[in-house]
């Protein structure tokens, strides 16, 4: 047993931490999250240069990592500073699918920060269920024509291409679709960033992987995304933890610092204890990425469930313990809390993953 990271991963974490601390002020992030394109392209490129994206891919795909703990280390650091660059949405998720489909040029460009892709999988009628696909793909002479609608595709605007799930007679398959083939309705997201409704009307698509293999490919990407989100949430919780401790130590009410009030002390102790449970859930999920079958599915679902439950607790309790100031846009806490809550809305919420955990328990 060993619960410290390898030297390489620790150096990576330090590098990201130092960079973000020095060069990634929260104010600019918040500002970027309310305008177009929803992030800071120069920052995204800088992160790619630091190796943040390369760390998410194995050596044979042009990266230097790609394991569960690489993903966990990167996203925990990004979470701490509330980074809303599209590392997960435009690199990790589409990159791992494109790699699996042998699109090595595209993956290289992604790793270099030179190209961005997005997965357009979830549909308006589906609550997190990636297998609920109504978009259709029809074979044409030399390719496929896709028709349908996809919802809340994050950081879609400006992408070089989209990976779209669509149904054929053989089930769900994934297709690479050019940016010029889709219509986007672009908007701001609540947690600071952008997304789009994407519509396809006979869009030309190129099959990725085997026809009918889409569900398995999506699940593989979903596991990576869930791990990344969970680690991001853990990073956010750590910052929230520090802010709240600091506030309890300094804010005075009725003549004493509020951290002296035992009712708050006990609630803080519960929050601290739960954050350690969240950390354990992320470690377990990172490790599970090297497992398979029901065991992997259960552990990853358990992590997202835990993050959903604990994330809500941390967001709500930290706001309540801060009081009014936490309700203001100007104070940092609220932005962290918003992202923490909205993470429960990406890739399946806590109820979704609790059900998934139960389902894979029966299967085991």
């Amino acid at each position, binding site marked *: 047993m060993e619960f410290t990271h390898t030297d390489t991963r620790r150096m990576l974490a330090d590098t990201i931490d130092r960079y973000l601390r020095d060069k990634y002020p929260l104010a600019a992030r918040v500002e970027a999250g309310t305008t177009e394109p929803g992030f800071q392209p120069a920052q995204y490129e800088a992160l790619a240069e630091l190796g943040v994206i390369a760390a998410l891919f194995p050596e044979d795909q042009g990266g230097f990592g790609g394991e569960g703990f690489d993903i966990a280390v990167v996203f925990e650091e990004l979470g701490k500073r509330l980074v809303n660059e599209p590392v997960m949405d435009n690199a990790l998720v589409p990159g791992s699918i494109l790699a699996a489909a042998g699109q090595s040029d595209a993956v290289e460009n992604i790793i270099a920060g030179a190209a961005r892709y997005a997965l357009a999988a*979830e549909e*308006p*009628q*589906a*609550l*997190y*269920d990636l297998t*609920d696909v109504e978009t259709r793909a029809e074979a044409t002479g030399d390719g496929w024509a896709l028709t349908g*609608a996809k*919802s*809340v595709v994050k950081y879609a605007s400006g992408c070089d291409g989209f990976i779209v799930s669509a149904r054929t007679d053989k089930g769900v398959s994934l297709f690479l679709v050019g940016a010029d083939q889709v219509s986007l*309705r672009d*908007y*701001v*997201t*609540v*947690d600071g960033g952008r*997304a789009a*409704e994407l*519509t396809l009307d006979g869009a030309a698509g190129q099959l990725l992987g085997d026809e009918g293999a889409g569900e398995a490919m999506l699940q593989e990407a979903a596991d990576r995304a869930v791990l990344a989100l969970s680690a991001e949430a853990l990073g956010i919780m750590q910052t929230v933890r520090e802010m709240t401790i600091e506030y309890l130590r300094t*804010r005075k*009410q*009725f003549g004493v610092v509020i951290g002296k*009030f035992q*009712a*708050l002390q006990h609630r803080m102790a519960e929050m601290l204890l739960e954050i350690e449970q969240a950390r354990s859930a992320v470690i377990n999920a990172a490790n599970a990425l090297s497992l398979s079958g029901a065991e992997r599915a259960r552990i990853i679902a358990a992590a997202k469930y835990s993050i959903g439950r604990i994330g*809500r607790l941390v967001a*709500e309790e930290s*706001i*309540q313990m801060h*009081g*009014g100031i*936490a*309700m*203001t*846009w*100007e104070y940092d806490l*609220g*932005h962290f*809390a*918003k992202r923490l*809550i*909205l993470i*429960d*809305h*990406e890739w399946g*919420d806590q*109820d979704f993953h*609790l*059900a998934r955990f139960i389902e894979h328990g029966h299967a085991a």
Partner: protein
Amino acid sequence: MDLNFTQEEVEFREEVRGWLAENLPADLARKVRSDAPLTKDDMVRWQLILHEKGWLTYSWPAEFGGTGWGPVKQFIFEEEMAYACAPRILPFGLKMLGPVLMKFGTKEQQDYYLPRMCDGTHWWCQGYSEPGAGSDLASLKTAAVRDGDHYIVNGQKTWTTLGQHADWIFCLVRTSTDGKPQEGISFLLIDMKTPGIEVRPIQTIDGGREVNEVWLTDVKVPVENLVGEENKGWTYAKYLLTHERTNIAGVGKSNQELARLKELAANQKRNGKPLAEDPFFAARMAKVEIALMNMEITNLRVLAQAEAGGSPGAESSMLKILGTEIEQELTDLTRRALGRSAQALTPEADDQGFNGPYVAPEGFQNASGVYFNHRKTTIYGGSTEIQKNIINKMIVGL
């Protein structure tokens, strides 16, 4: 025991409901239903419609031009307003300052201010909170120094809801630093047009711009704007805060939100079935519905007591805690029911002529914002922690 309203009360409810159906402008109801922000004009328009009917002062005694309704009728009126999705009646003048003036103000103050807070002349806001004070209201520092016929006021107020529209502000100010903090506080009425007043908006985490800071620099306030006696302001402030609030629990509003949530959950799908039939989501909805049913009875118990002339004790604090927690839980379930679409912030979809595609279903463009905005309800108006202190004090006595 009789849980039913009297025949007269039932008829009264019908009357209110019927009138609202005919007189509440549809555009306002639509905005309220979908949690879209109201403009000043929206609010004033509705206020004047109610005033014309004589119902704006529904909580006032007849002698001051009110309806003279008892607690039960007031409750029914508030419930029906909530069910109809009417804009809320702003409390600052009518529910807060009004009763204080009726009890502690001079005849001149009553005659001048009371009619003007009804007819749209004066928009009032509240100057209680200060940045350093929070739940410890009595530690306020804004100072008023007597100078001949005037007070000179310096300091800063915060969380001033809709202060950007206000003509007047009622303020707690420090007129003495002797004795306990509560003892040197006075209650002043200040014209917002007085030189030295600056209103700075506070943007809230949901992006809203409802609250403000009010900065006061050498603001000259005539001494006749003092309510009651100097240094007795804490008494009036407490009267205002503990003044019987028959619907602190927000039963009508929460019932309305629950109905809206149920409709949403019936239309959203999980695994091909309505979300309302998903056992986990159904359980979440059922639990909050049961809590609300229980609280409704608790509320009626307090109401019956108030109608009989009693004054509620720890129950007010219980209803504040329960009411806000239920409200928050409903906003939480609403955002959950929306799934991924709760992430989209698309207020433009509420605009007339919007042409799609919708992300969240119509009427739910701002569900996450509403959830975050509602975090305030357990902080303001006496935080949940303060209410628990009160309950403990009143019942355990320590």
